[in-house]
């Protein structure tokens, strides 16, 4: 079936409209917090959410079947000043015109926000608390530097939660959750301090549930009003149905597929209003939706096409919400991407194949809507049905960069290594870009970005930034006096340890602040064990409390650099270390011949053990160093190579590097080869990447490759792609994602953005509309090597 006229209209609006800032939610939160001074923080947060559900404007847009929006605009970007507002105050005028992820905002709005909202939050936000508690030394290396970044954990809502639809939300509804909370409260004694805290928690659950119930009813009322005025009988009937559904949903457990879709969206909307979160994951959509679909199908209430249209309406809902982030954060997470990660495929807990009609429907919806959300992930197990593999590779061949493709077993292994029970590990879903995750979990999955290449720069530049000359890290001796590879490795390790330590300090500080004023009653209500334990997520209520994740950036650049020094200086003695230092100090100017020699050295991504083994050792050191620290809950920190779009900002702050890279050029994301340096076949790129021990990096690993479109243009070609994927997963790889659009098309899109508004491309761990990316981001995508071998 082709996309319906309704969906196409909504889609066109999505493609053509710039997101608009809305302060409704921020204003309601501010008023609410003014009223609740002195109360326990968890109740203040829950009350503010409840007030928002009562007061937020209720809008049903043209043609919608799935309703609920976070403000007065269809494409809405909301504000959460309780986390951070300094950056908004500083940047808000630049929102409409900035290069990456602009938002519309009016002068009147800016004036209102400055007059009514920001003054209250002065001194009260998490951002300010973080900055107040953080030492100058830590700030120098870890605040807005590109060497080490943690700001998504103290400037924005946390997110990184997978709602538990299966055990909590769908079977209970918010009415059921409220009843449960009230029942727990009955058993508790306010005179016992520990129980008093639980009573507060359950009171917050009641406020959240009441809020959600009210929100549903207000949409029901709105739909009824609109139906009464609607002239078109077909639309009137739709509005009446919406009114009927929202009179029960999300209070009650849904009964039909359509009710379930609406329920899922209300939950998503609730999370958005609560935190404006990053990585607020719908999780294993095909698993929890299928029973409702099957029941309706058997009862003759629905057919595939009707269900598909509803799913496509939901996809557009996921995409109309725009995450509001700072310029700095936007450079790390480019493309309005909020990482609503939705997983399909894989195995069931019993080990059998989990694919069903909804798995295929999700892939079809992504192909037809070409929206940047949800972030579609597929789990591929060794016995994956060929039809599913064909559906996956067919979507790859459209060039949209979706889906993210994951090895089922590696995901399981990653969670097992964190101590998950086997059945929970088997039920993993994807979070954010490429993080194996669970609906039973509390984890900061994208907590710190740490640059391997920055540590190299500090090691080879006396602890200073090569570009600014500032002493930002630990002092080190004159690099020209290093006498052996061992000495250089030790110097790198010393700097890297320091970066890790500063990251740990920053994140423990941020955790402590969140524990004090960052309660998350809405998200806690979506987590089975918070309710059982009577504790908020920030108080360790979840079944699994996993330490914050450090994601390593610049692995291949750093490994390649070590290989160059080892080969040219110490083995072949073609130059001295001083030559290399001088060359990179001069950004290779005047050292072109030396640069050619450096470029000719073995590069990661070509299945050459000489350099791949260096990459693996660096990755192992990363794991050993990070996991030896515990967070404030006593959980080990976790490693990942997931990448996001962080290879741009982390490259921009670095001088030239020994492997031939120029100053300010991007570094590399995840375990991907350095742009353009994987010159052998893509089989070699996969083999190099698989040499890193993926399963120990439980925060996820990411591999991006570009394939010439011709390779996947035929069914045969796609079957070969499927075989490549299975081979990579058999080697222990976790994730791979492909861009298959030719540079010719991208160049044309750069020149004529108006013709390519809906062109989706793979950035890193996610896809975004190409025209929504800054020029430099576009360039870097075009520079990725396309594998064209035949």
């Amino acid at each position, binding site marked *: 079936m082709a996309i319906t006229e309704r969906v196409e209209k909504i889609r066109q609006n999505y493609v053509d409209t710039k997101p608009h800032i809305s302060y409704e939610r921020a204003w309601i939160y501010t008023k609410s917090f003014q009223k609740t001074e002195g109360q326990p923080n968890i109740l203040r947060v829950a009350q503010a959410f409840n007030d928002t559900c009562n007061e937020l404007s209720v809008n049903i847009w043209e043609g919608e079947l799935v309703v609920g929006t976070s403000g007065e605009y269809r494409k809405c970007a909301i504000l959460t000043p309780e986390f951070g507002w300094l950056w908004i105050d500083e940047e808000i005028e630049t929102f409409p015109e900035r290069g990456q992820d602009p938002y519309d905002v009016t002068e009147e709005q800016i004036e209102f926000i400055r007059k009514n909202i920001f003054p209250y939050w002065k001194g009260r936000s998490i951002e300010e608390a973080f900055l107040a508690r953080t030492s100058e030394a830590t700030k120098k290396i870890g605040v807005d530097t590109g060497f080490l970044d943690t700001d998504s954990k103290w400037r924005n809502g946390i997110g990184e939660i997978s709602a538990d639809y299966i055990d909590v939300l769908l079977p209970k509804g918010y009415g059921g959750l409220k009843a449960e909370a009230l029942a727990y409260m009955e058993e508790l004694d306010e005179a016992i301090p520990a129980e008093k805290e639980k009573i507060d928690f359950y009171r917050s659950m009641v406020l959240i549930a009441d809020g959600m119930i009210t929100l549903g009813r207000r949409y029901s009322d709105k739909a009824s009003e609109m139906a009464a005025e609607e002239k078109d009988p077909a639309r009137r009937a739709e509005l009446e149905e919406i009114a009927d559904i929202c009179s029960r949903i999300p209070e009650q457990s849904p009964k039909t597929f359509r009710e379930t879709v609406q329920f899922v969206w209300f939950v998503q909307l609730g999370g958005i209003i609560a935190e404006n979160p990053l990585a607020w994951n719908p999780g294993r959509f095909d698993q929890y939706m299928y029973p409702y679909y099957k029941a309706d199908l058997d009862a003759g209430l629905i057919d595939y096409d009707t269900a598909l249209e509803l799913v496509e309406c939901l996809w557009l809902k996921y995409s109309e919400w725009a995450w509001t982030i700072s310029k700095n954060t936007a450079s790390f997470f480019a493309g309005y991407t909020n990482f609503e990660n939705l997983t399909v495929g894989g195995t069931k807990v019993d080990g059998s194949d989990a694919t069903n009609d909804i798995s295929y429907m999700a892939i079809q919806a992504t192909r037809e809507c070409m929206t940047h959300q949800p972030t579609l992930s597929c789990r591929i197990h060794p016995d994956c049905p060929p039809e599913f593999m064909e559906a996956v590779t067919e979507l790859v061949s459209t060039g949209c960069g979706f889906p993210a493709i994951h090895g089922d077993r590696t995901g399981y292994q990653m969670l097992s290594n964190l101590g998950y029970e086997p059945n929970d590990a088997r039920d993993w879903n994807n979070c954010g870009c490429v993080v194996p995750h669970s609906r039973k979990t509390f984890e900061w999955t994208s907590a710190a970005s740490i640059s391997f290449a920055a540590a190299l720069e500090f090691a080879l530049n006396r602890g200073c930034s090569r570009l600014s000359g500032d002493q930002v890290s630990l002092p080190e001796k004159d690099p020209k006096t290093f006498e052996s590879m061992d000495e250089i490795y030790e110097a790198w390790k010393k700097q890297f340890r320091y970066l890790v330590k500063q990251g740990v300090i920053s994140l423990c500080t941020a955790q402590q602040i969140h524990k004090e004023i960052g309660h998350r009653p809405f998200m806690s209500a979506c987590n089975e064990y918070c309710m059982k334990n009577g504790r908020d997520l920030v108080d360790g209520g979840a079944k699994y409390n996993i330490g914050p994740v450090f994601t390593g950036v610049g692995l291949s650049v750093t490994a390649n650099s070590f290989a160059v020094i080892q080969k040219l200086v110490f083995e072949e003695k073609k130059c001295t270390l001083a030559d290399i230092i001088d060359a990179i100090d001069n950004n290779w100017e005047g050292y072109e011949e030396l640069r050619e020699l450096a470029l000719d050295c073995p590069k990661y991504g070509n299945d050459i053990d000489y350099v791949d083994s260096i990459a693996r050792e660096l990755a192992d050191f990363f794991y050993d160093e990070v996991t030896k620290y515990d967070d404030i809950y006593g959980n080990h920190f976790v490693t990942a190579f997931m990448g996001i779009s962080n290879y741009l900002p982390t490259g921009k702050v670095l001088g030239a590097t020994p492997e031939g890279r120029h100053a300010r050029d991007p570094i590399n994301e995840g375990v991907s080869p350095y742009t353009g340096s994987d010159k052998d076949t893509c*089989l070699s790129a996969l083999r190099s990447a698989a040499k890193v021990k993926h399963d120990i990096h439980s925060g996820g690993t990411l591999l991006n490759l570009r394939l010439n479109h011709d390779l996947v243009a035929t069914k045969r*070609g796609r*079957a*070969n792609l499927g*075989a490549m994927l*299975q*081979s990579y997963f058999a080697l222990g790889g976790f994730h791979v994602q492909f861009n298959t659009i030719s540079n010719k098309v991208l160049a044309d899109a750069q020149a004529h953005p108006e013709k390519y508004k809906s062109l989706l491309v793979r950035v890193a761990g996610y896809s975004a509309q190409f025209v929504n990316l800054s020029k430099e981001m576009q360039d870097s995508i075009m520079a990725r090597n396309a594998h064209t*071998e*035949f």
Partner: protein
Amino acid sequence: MGIKGYVMNIQPFSVNDGDGIRTTVFLAGCPLRCSWCSNPEGMTMEEKVNAETGESMVSLMDADEVLAKVQKHRLFYAYSGGGITFSGGEPTMQTEFLDYLSAEIYDRGYSMAIETSGMFDWDRVAHILGRMDLIFMDLKIMDDAKHLKYTGVSNKQILENIARIKSLSTDEQGPEVVIRIPVVGGVNDDEDNIRSSAAYVKEHVPGARMELLPYHNFGTIKYKALDLPYEHPEFRTPGRAEMERLRQIVREEGVEIADYR
């Protein structure tokens, strides 16, 4: 052990020379001198270097080194149903080398294919062909005089060998056969040639399919690298529609078209 041979290239991730993901081993030496040859470095059995870059274009390699290289990608063969393809040059020219390699690979159980000009002594090569899962054999031009003019040899032995392929099949267990025509515009793209070729295949190799590949001039870079002249403006690359028309003629003669794109 210790067998060495002249190898032009070992190309992993070949996807158009048989099923799945394959590694193509290009062996040097060829009895033909096709005017349009796109791998001129493979005409003779000797080491060659690129005159411009100094890179090796043909090197003497130990058979076990070749085996190690092709074996590296076994996982990709297993998942894709791919394997190893011998090409050239004319891979049967180095008969002993090919015999050794193919026997070793046969024992390892990987799928094998060969691309041959059909110009070889049947009795010396038949047992090697018997190890193959897929045989691509060229039938460049039906007209013998023209064949001699453009390839330097008569097509008599080639036609005989094509006719002998069916003897490899026992109980339907023999290799699949694809007879290929490299379609060079202005040389062999006439309807007569295509039709009579297809008729010959239909008559002599029951069950064989045919593949028609359009001529390309990518080889010109190699001539430059070898410091050899290549001036053939008379050869045209047939267009898509023309290729389709010729394939239709083959079908009309009752032969199925193979397509590995």
